[in-house]
């Protein structure tokens, strides 16, 4: 049995979207290194409830790194210190006994705080409604093997398609840019034959919605890629830019 840890947590508390928030400091003890970060927060919440205080609200669901619901800035890093890892898959063995950990929500204007560490990411869904799909009604499909896709393109499309929509890229970016998120979907469909007919409208629609939601521009700092828990590459942003320029030119003719 590995030794347990005591930690000091500075947690952002905010009652609702309009109230002012503040950091509050809590202590937790007997934390096992094999516990996940969210399981550590579970311990804090059990302690708060027993003491008659309000537990800390945070988003989570699958707790296996795939649903994209968990978030958290941990010591200023989106999803914490471990590369390519969501907060739910971050384990306490990455911390030391006696550490102080600062826990904040995603900070970005298009992601307003709803309560404590919970933010509203519905802007991402609104971007998807503007072209993050192939127009094909149920029943329209040809045989799966009638569409040949070179393995290399299929693999690249898959890599882009693994985006979990968590918003870490936005939270990590000094401009709160959503370019990595948008580029992942645009790339997936631009690389596949199924995506070709709507290639132009897709990139224009999604980028326009991204801008109107208030996400900032990309200044090639690559913080997004560093923070991405599934390793979406900034190559996709380059592809998004090419797709956008192409669409602009095509749109002119």
């Amino acid at each position, binding site marked *: 049995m590995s030794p347990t840890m005591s930690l000091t947590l500075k947690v952002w508390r905010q009652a609702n979207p309009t109230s002012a928030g503040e950091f509050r400091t809590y202590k937790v003890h007997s934390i096992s290194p094999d516990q*996940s970060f969210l399981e550590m927060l579970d311990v804090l919440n059990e302690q708060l409830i027993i003491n008659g205080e*309000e537990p800390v609200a945070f988003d989570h669901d699958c707790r296996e790194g795939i649903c994209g619901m968990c978030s958290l800035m941990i010591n200023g890093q989106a999803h914490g210190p471990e590369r390519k890892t969501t907060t739910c898959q971050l384990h306490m063995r990455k911390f030391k006994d006696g550490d102080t950990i600062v826990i904040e929500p995603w900070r970005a204007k298009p992601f307003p705080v709803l309560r404590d560490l919970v933010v509203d990411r519905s802007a991402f869904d609104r971007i998807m*409604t503007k072209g993050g799909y192939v127009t*094909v*009604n*149920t*029943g329209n499909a040809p045989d*799966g093997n009638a569409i040949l896709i070179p393995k290399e393109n299929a693999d690249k499309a*898959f890599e882009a*398609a693994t985006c979990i929509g968590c918003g870490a890229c936005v939270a990590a970016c000094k401009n709160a840019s959503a370019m990595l998120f948008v580029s992942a979907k645009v790339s997936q469909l631009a690389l596949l034959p199924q995506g070709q007919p709507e290639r132009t409208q897709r990139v224009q629609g999604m980028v326009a919605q991204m801008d109107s939601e208030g996400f900032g521009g990309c200044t090639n700092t690559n913080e997004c890629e560093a923070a991405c828990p599934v390793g979406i590459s900034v190559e996709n942003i380059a592809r998004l830019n090419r797709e956008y320029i192409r669409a602009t030119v095509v749109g002119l003719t």
Partner: protein
Amino acid sequence: MMTAASPLLNGRCPTGPVADRWQKCKDELKLVSPNNKRKFEIIVVGTGLAGASAAASLSELGYNVKAFCFQDSPRRAHSIAAQGGINAAKNYQNDNDSVNRLFADTIKGGDFRSRESNVHRLAELSVNIIDQCVAQGVPFAREYGGLLSNRTFGGSLVSRTFYARGQTGQQLLLGAYSALMRQQHVGRLKVFPRREMLDVVVIDGVARGIVVRNLVTGQLETYAADAVLMCTGGYGTLYYLSTLAKGSNVTAAWRAYKRGALFANPCYTQIHPTCIPVHGEYQSKLTLMSESLRNDGRVWVPQKAGDTRSPDQIPDADRDYYLERRYPTYGNMVARDVASRAAKERCDAGFGVGAGGQSVYLDFSEAIRRDGEAAIRARYGNLFDMYQKITDENPYKNPMRIYPAVHYTMGGLWVDYHLQSTIPGLFVLGEANFSDHGANRLGASALMQGLADGYFIAPYTVSNHLATRKLEKVTTDHPEFERCLAETRSRTYKLLNINGKRTVDSFHRELGKLMWDYCGMSRSDKGLRSVIQKIRGLREEFWRNVRVPGSGNELNQNLEQAGRVADFLEFGELLALDALTRAESCGGHFREESQTKDNDTLRDDANFCHVAAWQYTADDRDPVRHIEPLEFNDVPLIQRSYK
């Protein structure tokens, strides 16, 4: 015990040759004219594979659809966590697969406790699902020639599983989600995220709406419709520790049960053989390691009980590859329930490995030697990474340690062939219904069923409901909405005002442990009788001693959880009662009193070849058990064998 077919359970299965039944049913279904479709409102609760595909497809047909989910986005429903793949009888690998074989494998895998008509339809539709998903841009694995790739899953001798690395569910769900987003853009569909369904409103015997809690503001909201589709998933989090999402729950299904929908076969739970073992008291969930790993991994324990050598120091001669030994034909690819029980049997007999001896090895060393580490990484990279993150052990160097965990529930709300529950107008799709997997689901079949229900069945059968039933216009001003709203409000008030000493989570953990100990992989008459009493005691304590902080007029995650656990405390008793009444073993339901000399399940077809569906009567009265007999004409009713 009632042994005659219940008049409440008219399955509406067509007659005639099994292969023609779905076509026959479709031919008889009534249509709604294109002009009239826009006059109908449809509510879909849950946005996993079944819900998202149904909502999008119904909206494409021209209906007005409202889709609800408790997550912050429909893309996060727990279908997203399905890993290994989706079955389809395409026979792309030329290994003599067919619709008939997928049908027979699924009936057999379910240990002869599912409906032949439904399962055949599922096998037929499997081929359309792959086509639909490819057309949406789902990036399935492909060969160098550009064609789709396949792998093998448990309970089958052919290669019919389509996959997208170890995250097939994610890619399929994002495909269905994209169709949903497209319909939102078109304007006939609206998504309501962060809403939890707390009641179904039944007017003149027909489902006409729902009550939901807005999880951001705490406000209760009501919505009226001409049909309600529940696609709310399974109830595995009853066991606290499971591979399900933390938010997964039985509440929507339980509310429908209390309004008159019968609940079928709740005791059919699936304990998946390959999960990361439990490693601490604080643990909040278990993580699956896909069954596809059994294609290349070999399961073993030491020959000698208590052998503490590290696995690489144990030579082949001192290892017991017990699945290969006991089931030479299927080997490591036996059905899930069989593999799980075998692991439990070895661990209980003292051969388990790891701390507490509660795990077995899943060893890739031979596959890595044969195909190289790069090939194994390409097949399972994300699963190996996940294993390493959780356990801090490198599975490329040491064998994985695995143990069974609660993963899926085959039971659910009873539905007829149209997927309609015993409440007209209330349809139940995907894992939330009971229909296709019998007493055990085969791997890569959950995705298939969710999408078959949503893309290809509900759009036809829901249209028939709208075309044939005279539906008076109903608004949320109707007194029945007011009554359901008042009941929900008073229940919330009650939860918030107990102000006891124990947290919701502590009750949930205790309930989960009871269920696992008495109603998990092994069940007995004596244990089930005692657990029913224990659950009643715990429920009584909950309503006296739980502490739910905060108010009902705000984002209050503890209140959400309290409502779910309160329902589990009732539902757990029904599950145990169902397990007690079904005094036979079948699939995932293993009764110690009913086993073969090799510890395999022993069915009692003379007394239990039926679906058991429970009818709610009152909180202080026992539910009534109804039966729907099962007939097997196309797959002979035999003792299942994977030897």
